[in-house]
Structure formats: C-alpha cells, structure tokens
C-alpha cells in the first residue's frame, strides 16, 4: 500500500467524479452511500498504509512516493509526490476516519434536501483536497489542497445559498482566508528564492544554513497562512459565521479537519520553527490569546453551534500554544482528540437541531435528556472530554499542552489554565441549558423566534444573522414534515445519525490512550519522534510538578463545571453572565467593519464613481470629442465637387514641382 499510496486521495476523487456524473440520477440515499463508501475505502487504504509503516524500522518510517513531474519551467521544477510519514499518516487516518463517520451521519441529516447529491459531491471533493494537503510532499502541493479545501469550505458554508446570511458567510470565509493565503504564497516565493525547491525535505535540509531574517520571514508568513485557515486572532472572524453551513459540514470542515490544517502546516515545518525562536514565541502568544479570547466569547453565545464554533477557535488556540512551545506532539495529540470530541459535539448539536426541527437557540431547549437519550449521553461524553475531566481524551491532550506551556512560560500556562476553566464553564452551560432544566421548547414555536436569538453582526451588510436560520432553514433544509408527520415533540435521531455519535463518543473516551504520559505509554510521541527529531521540546519537569499541574487543571475544570452548575441548575439563572460585549465577540467584527470595510467601501466607490466614471471615462470621452470636433472642421474640405479636388491636385502637383525645382537648383 505504501507504493500505491496515491489510492488514498484518489478514491475520494473518484467518488467525486462519479457523483458529478451520476449523483443526481442516483438520488437519495444512493448518492450518499457512494460518497461514504469512497471515503470509507480511502480510510481502509490509510489503515493498511499505517500498519505497513508501523511494521518498519523506527527510522525508515518515511516514504516518498513520486507520482509525476507537475511543472517544469527553467530551473523551476515541481514534482507531484506524496510523503507518507508518521505525521501525515496520523492526519490522514483521522481525516478519513472521522470523515467517513460524518458522511454516514450526513446521509441521515441531509435527508429530504433538494440538493442531497450535490452535498456529497462537495464533501468528497473536500476529502480529496484535504488528503492532498496532508500527503503532498511539497509546499505547492499542500497549497493546492489548501485552496481546494478553502473552495469546498466556501461552497459548503453557502450550501443553502437561498439564505442571504449563508451566502454572505461563505463570501466572508473566502475573503478572510485570502489574507492568510497571501502570506502562504509569499512564504512559498521566499522558500523557492532561498532554497530553490518547495519540497519539505529540501526546505528542512536547507534551513540550517539559511540567513536568520529570511527564515524568520518564511516562518512568520506561513503562520499568517495558518492563522487564516485555523481561525486565529486576528483572522478568526469567518469561523463563527461559517456555522451557516449544514451541521455535518461544521463538524467535518470547521471543527475536525480543515481548520487544523494550519496546525499541521506548522508541525510540518517544525525544524524551521525550531531555528526561529522569536516566531515560535509569537505563535505561542497568539495561540494563548486566541484560546482565552474565544473561550470568553463562547460563554455568552446562545446559538448552540456558535458556542461550539468559538470553542473550536479556542481549542485551535491551544494547539498553536503547543506548537509555539515546541510541543508538536502535544499539538497533534490535541488535534486528534479534538477531532473526536468536537466532531461528536457538532454532530450531537446537529442531532439536537434536527430533533427540535431546526431550533438553534439554546434558550429554547432544555430537558432534552429525556427525549434524546443517545444524543444526550454522547454529548455529555463530548462535554466531559473537552472540559478536561479525566480520564476522557481531552484531559490528556490538554494536560500535555499545559505542561509544555508551563515550561515555555508560566504566564502562557496561566492563560491556558484560565481558558480551561472557561471551557469547562461554557460547555457545562451548554449541556445544562440543552439537556437539563425546563422544557422551554414547549412555549417557543420555532416559527416565531426570529427576534430572540441575538444575532452577531455577521459579515458586513446584513444585520440578520443566525436568527433567520431556524425559520428559513425549514424551507431549504428538510422540513419537519419530511420526517413523517410527528408533532412538535423532540425526537431522537435515526440510527444512521446516532451510530456515528456512539463511535465518536467511544473514541472521545479512550482517545487519550494513544499518548498517556507514562513512559512507554507515550505511543504517539514515540511514533512521531522521527518526524520532528531535534526540534521537539522534551519536558524536563519532575513528576511532582507534572502531578501538581494536572491536579490544578482538573480543579480548574471542576470549578468551571461547578460554577455553571450553581448558576444554571441551582439558581436557574438563564441570562447570567452574558455581557453584551462578549455576545458581540468583543466587537471585533464591528471594529473590522469600521476600520477596514467602511474605508474599503469608500475607496471602492471613489474608484467607481470618481476614478472610473470621471477620470478614465473622461479620457476616453475626451478623445472621442477631439476626433469628432476636428472631423467636423475637416469635413468642409470634402465638398463633393470634382473641380475642387482637381484644383487641389493641380495645386499640389505645382507645389511638388516647385519644390523639386528648387531642390535641384534649377531656378
């Protein structure tokens, strides 16, 4: 399989092509099964490749698979090749694995949608692009996948494009990501100018001898790209709006896989980062700030998916904190566990939304635990995992990150700890609001709630945010009637949706096993060691410190949960601790609107109505006026009388004759 690794990305591509050709005819649910089986087969291939790699010597676990020469112009040559090493295989495993589960879930979730088959077309194209991103052995091939997932993200966010807010959210994601891609591209140019190659191996080899400033610039620019894709400060604004897409998309693209591409890229160029400690520190600080910032905002959101969106940003911040601290293994570890529990939470949220007939406002939920036993049980597992309660997966990975952050700087650790507390709080708030308390959905018919959800100012020019979602969503999405005429009571989702929840819940429980911090139990660390080599930061803390830090982290998590319990379960204070500024995400969207969008618009209208209409059109029209005016004067010469022309000819001939005579000296 290692020699046929091209099958891994090829299968989803084939699935995509087949669905493009016959998807509409195959209809529902066959199109969904085609898409799911393509990804499932790809997962199996990855699994085989993983075991083959595992069977090799520790040092020989890196296989380059040259496919073909893609571009050759002068000294510039790009080979399309795949790189299979522990890092890329780990990523590919959970991308295809989680992707497969989400495909299955989508067959249930997208039931009755008029563009059912198109959804799987996009989803398969996404998985293909993501795998190219991961498995590509050069920056350019990664960039190809990078742009591919960006395009799919755009298409899927605005999947229900009849909705103004969804269309705008898609555009916003696209535009904000362009900023990051710009950094990525300049970094590639710099890499080619410096190293003469875009292959990771060449870059890492050449990094030792390269000038420090160039390296710093490259690392920083790549980080700008990562910031865009992974929704870090200050480019995070697109991710909350991306929740306009169907929920499986939010789970797959905007939680588990695509948004972690930035972290993956940073891990891929880890040796470069190791040589530029300033950039590493910057990454750690940005990551910690993002984690804290997004966690505060998540505390005040009412939309069930928006809470999770900010939570995703926050968790990605953790991963960058780990990257910046040199703890690449911890970052990848958290990436994997996060993929499990965040995909679970999103799919659970989707199940809740589905069960409540497209209700997204948590203030209109409650007591669902009795109505949706599978969803609530799995959701609670996801909650405990993300909150960092041992022994669930999230505890181990978060603890690993916090430990490394502590060695980098106690301040970063403190910020991370505070974030962990907030994480536990907002997730507990969500769980208590949705699954416990009063049955608030009874007195809130979904159709009349357009004004209740406080919408954030999404994008720039439409005030109506997620509030419309619930209402319009009915039209675009399968209405409740499509499920067989049951009443307004919540209902548990079909097994096609609940099944993936159960699998992901199991993974969220045991996910920590891949990297327990006890000597030989640190399997992931051992597995990824050859990839990072010397650039990996090794923890030197004593086991006493480790235990103390872990205990403090658990205490913080329990404190957060306890605080939420006291507020929402004991005191039943629904609107507690939701300052308006947090609802509006510290006003960052408004700030961007004021500082960038408004001047940008002024500039555009200046360009359109002054530069274009007056100056450019003025020049063109002016030229026309001059030609027309001179023509008007000169047309008088054209009298139409032959004698006038003959006279002209005679006069001219005489003149010429005279000139010739004068020249020849004849006169």
């Amino acid at each position: 399989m290692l020699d046929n690794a091209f099958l891994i990305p090829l299968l989803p591509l084939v699935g995509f092509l087949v669905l493009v050709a016959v998807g509409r005819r195959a209809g529902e649910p066959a199109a969904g099964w085609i898409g799911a089986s393509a990804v499932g087969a790809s997962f199996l291939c990855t699994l085989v490749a993983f075991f083959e790699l595992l069977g090799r010597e520790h040092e020989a676990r890196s296989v380059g698979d040259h496919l073909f020469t893609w571009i050759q112009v002068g000294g510039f040559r790009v080979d399309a090749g795949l790189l299979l090493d522990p890092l890329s295989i780990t990523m590919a495993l959970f991308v295809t694995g989680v992707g497969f589960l989400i495909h299955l879930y989508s067959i249930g979730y997208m039931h009755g949608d008029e563009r059912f088959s198109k959804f799987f077309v996009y989803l398969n194209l996404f998985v293909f692009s993501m795998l190219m991103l991961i498995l590509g052995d050069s920056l350019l091939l990664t960039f190809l996948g990078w742009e591919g997932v960006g395009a799919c993200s755009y298409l899927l966010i605005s999947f229900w494009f009849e909705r103004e807010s969804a269309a705008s959210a898609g555009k916003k994601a696209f535009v904000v990501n362009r900023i990051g891609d710009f950094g990525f591209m300049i970094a590639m140019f710099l890499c080619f100018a410096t190293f003469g190659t875009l292959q990771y191996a060449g870059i890492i080899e050449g990094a030792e001898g390269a000038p420090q400033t160039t390296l710093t610039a490259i690392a920083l620019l790549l980080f700008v790209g990562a910031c865009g894709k992974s929704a870090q400060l200050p480019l995070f604004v697109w991710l909350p709006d991306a929740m306009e897409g169907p929920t499986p998309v939010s789970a797959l693209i905007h939680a588990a896989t695509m948004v972690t591409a930035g972290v993956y890229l940073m891990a891929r160029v880890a040796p470069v980062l190791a040589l530029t400690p300033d950039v590493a520190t910057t990454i750690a600080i940005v990551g910690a700030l993002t984690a804290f910032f997004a966690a505060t905002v998540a505390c005040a959101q009412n939309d069930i998916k928006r809470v999770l969106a900010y939570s995703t940003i926050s968790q990605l911040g953790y991963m960058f904190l780990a990257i910046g601290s040199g703890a690449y293994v911890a970052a990848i570890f958290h990436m994997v566990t996060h993929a499990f529990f965040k995909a679970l939470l999103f799919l659970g949220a989707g199940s809740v939304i589905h069960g409540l007939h497209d209700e997204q406002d948590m203030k209109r939920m409650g007591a669902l635990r009795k109505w949706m036993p599978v969803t609530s049980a799995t959701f609670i597992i996801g909650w405990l995992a993300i909150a960092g309660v041992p022994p669930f997966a999230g505890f181990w990975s978060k603890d690993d990150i916090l430990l490394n952050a502590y060695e980098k700087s106690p301040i970063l650790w403190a910020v991370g700890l505070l974030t962990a507390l907030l994480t536990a709080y907002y997730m507990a708030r969500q769980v208590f609001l949705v699954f416990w308390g009063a049955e608030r959905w009874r007195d809130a018919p979904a159709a009349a709630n357009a004004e209740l959800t406080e919408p954030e100012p999404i994008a720039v020019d439409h005030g109506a945010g997620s509030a419309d979602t619930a209402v319009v969503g009915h039209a675009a999405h399968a209405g409740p009637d499509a499920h067989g005429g049951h009443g307004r009571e919540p209902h548990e989702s079909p097994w096609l949706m609940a099944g993936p929840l159960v699998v992901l819940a199991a993974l969220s429980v045991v996910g920590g096993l891949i990297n327990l911090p006890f000597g030989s139990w640190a399997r992931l660390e051992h597995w990824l060691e050859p990839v990072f080599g010397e650039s990996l930061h090794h923890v030197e803390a004593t086991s006493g410190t480790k235990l103390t830090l872990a205990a403090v982290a658990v205490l913080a998590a329990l404190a957060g949960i306890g605080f939420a319990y006291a507020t929402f379960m004991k005191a039943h204070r629904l609107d507690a601790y939701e300052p308006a500024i947090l609802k509006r995400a510290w006003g960052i969207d408004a700030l961007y609107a004021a500082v960038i969008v408004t001047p940008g618009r002024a500039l555009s209208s200046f360009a359109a109505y002054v530069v274009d209409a007056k100056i450019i059109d003025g020049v063109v029209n002016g030229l026309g006026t001059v030609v027309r005016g001179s023509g008007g004067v000169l047309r008088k010469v054209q009298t139409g009388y032959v004698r006038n022309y003959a006279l002209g000819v005679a006069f001219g001939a005489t003149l010429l004759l005279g000139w010739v005579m004068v020249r020849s000296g004849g006169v």
Partner: protein
Amino acid sequence: MTVGGEWYLTLAAALFTIGAVGVLVRRNVLVMFMCVELMLNAVNLTFVTFARMLDDIGGQSLVFFVLVVAAAEVVVGLGIIVAIFRRRAGATADDLHLLKG
C-alpha cells in the same frame, strides 16, 4: 528648317496646360474626361521626345505602359459615365456632389 526637340516639348506643355485647364473649368464630365486623356497624351509626347533626344529606349517603352493604363482607365471611366447618364439626363460634374462631407 529642322524641328528641334524643344518644339515638341513646347507643344506637349501646351497640350498639358489645355488639358489641365479643361479639367478645372469644364462642367461636362465627358469633356473633363477627354481633357484627362489630353494630359496623358501630352505626357506621352514628352516621353517620346526625351527618348529621342537622349537616345534612350526607356521613354518609349514607358509610353506603352501609359497607353495600357489609359485604356483600362477609359474603360472604367466611360463605364461610370454611361451609368451616370442612364440615371440622369445631361448631368454635369457639379450635380454629382453626393459625397459631400
């Protein structure tokens, strides 16, 4: 008395002038056309004269070119004139100022 080349040249100049003035002052298209022919033949005469004076065959051979071109021109020109006379009776050149700017 021998007739020198100057005589021929003077005659040619006179014919050319008559032709040129004719084209400029007459209104009848047919007459104007004949005047043009007059000018052409005046030029032919100078060619022949110079060929003889300078003892060079070039001038004489050029006359044939002029004759051929003139013949072709007559065909086209007379064709146009006939077409004009078919449309309107006895038109002068000044009546035909349709191409006025």
